[in-house]
């Protein structure tokens, strides 16, 4: 007999109301023989029988007085009443879940479906929207133009100053001579400023050309955020 078979046989013995903890001497011969030569199973047998014996000593637990009366009385109560008491929390949870699902659907519809301000199913911004988008961007354009104008003025002033500095002195006054001596560093500064400004303007133009379609698309896509812009162009009835 193997240890596994011994365990199974011991379980069968315990299941068949094997209540006596001192029963080792009455084990079936095959089991008894195994126990004699296997210390592990001897330990197992001893432990399980001891534990089983302890459980068998547990007192029978008794219910409180009037238990049977309560059961029989409840037997005549409709089942639905008991279920309703137990499931009180469920309707509220269901309603809350449905409300949350509905809210999510509405939000998804608002954010994902194409706007009605355009022309039917066309997702592209309408002409009116584009025009308004340009109007919206007008302050930005003004700012950029102002900036370019300032830079151009600065460039003109720098060029004028440079020309003045390079020109030969019309008098032999000591200040004029000193001014001629300082002309060389001024020449370098003016050229650098001019080059930088030209680069800035070129880059600005390129950037504007690149950004313009993206800006228009973005404005069209988010036009639902300011619906009144699109509606302004429509005749009011």
């Amino acid at each position, binding site marked *: 007999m193997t240890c596994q078979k011994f365990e199974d046989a011991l379980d069968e013995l315990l*299941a068949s109301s094997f209540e006596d903890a001192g029963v080792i001497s009455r084990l079936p011969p095959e089991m008894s023989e195994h126990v004699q030569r296997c210390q592990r199973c001897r330990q197992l047998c001893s432990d399980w029988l*001891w534990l089983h014996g*302890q459980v068998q000593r547990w007192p029978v637990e008794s219910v409180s007085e009037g238990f049977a009366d*309560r*059961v029989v009385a409840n*037997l005549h109560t409709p089942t639905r009443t*008991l279920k309703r008491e137990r499931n009180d929390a469920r309707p509220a949870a269901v309603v809350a879940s449905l409300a949350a699902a509905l809210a999510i659907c509405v939000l998804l519809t608002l954010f994902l479906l194409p706007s009605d301000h355009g022309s039917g199913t066309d997702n592209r911004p309408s002409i009116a929207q584009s025009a308004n988008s340009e109007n919206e961007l007008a302050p930005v354009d003004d700012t950029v133009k102002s900036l370019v104008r300032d830079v151009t003025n600065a460039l003109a002033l720098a060029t004028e100053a440079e020309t003045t500095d390079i020109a030969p002195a019309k008098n032999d006054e000591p200040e004029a001579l000193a001014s001629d001596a300082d002309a060389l560093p001024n020449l370098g500064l003016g050229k650098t400023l001019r080059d930088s400004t030209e680069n800035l303007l070129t880059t600005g133009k390129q950037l504007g050309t690149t950004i313009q379609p993206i800006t228009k698309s973005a404005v069209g896509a988010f036009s639902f955020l300011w619906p009144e812009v699109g509606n302004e162009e429509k005749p009011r009835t």
Partner: protein
Amino acid sequence: MNDDRELAERCLAGRESAYYEFVERFQGLVFGVCLRMVGDRHEAEDIAQEVLLRALRGLKGWDPERPIRPWLLTITANRCRTHLSRQARRPIASECSDEVVDHRDNDDDARELQVEIRHALEKLRPEFRQVFLLFHEQGLSYQEMSELLEKPVGTLKTWLHRARQELLEHLREKGLAPEKINDVSKV
């Protein structure tokens, strides 16, 4: 078993006295399992009441060819499992351990041992505890437990083995279980 069948038939006939007899016959069995499973006397009584109500209402579904006790224990086990899963995070109150009375051996050691076994039992995983109680206290076989708990016999064997081991370890730590035999080898 025939007696149980006859009682069930009287219950199905709607006799009030049969209802009382049914409850009084099985209340100890059902309440005992509930109490050991949930550890609280009031909760155990509520569950036992629900189990007996369900049994009486569902007697039509019981197969008269089979014993009624495993059928009742199935309902009990299911109700206890539902209860325990609802209160998974709530510690089990060990109310029953304060009321342990060993009618056969009233000395302090025996009482302490009973208390410790129940404490150890409460620390077991619910499925281990359930299998241990059904096997050692209710005397169900593996096959009966398998049908009752809808688990394979191999799983139940593992659970019962672990339940015993954990209980014995707990009791040995307290010096209440027999000492281990040295030089244990497997054949």
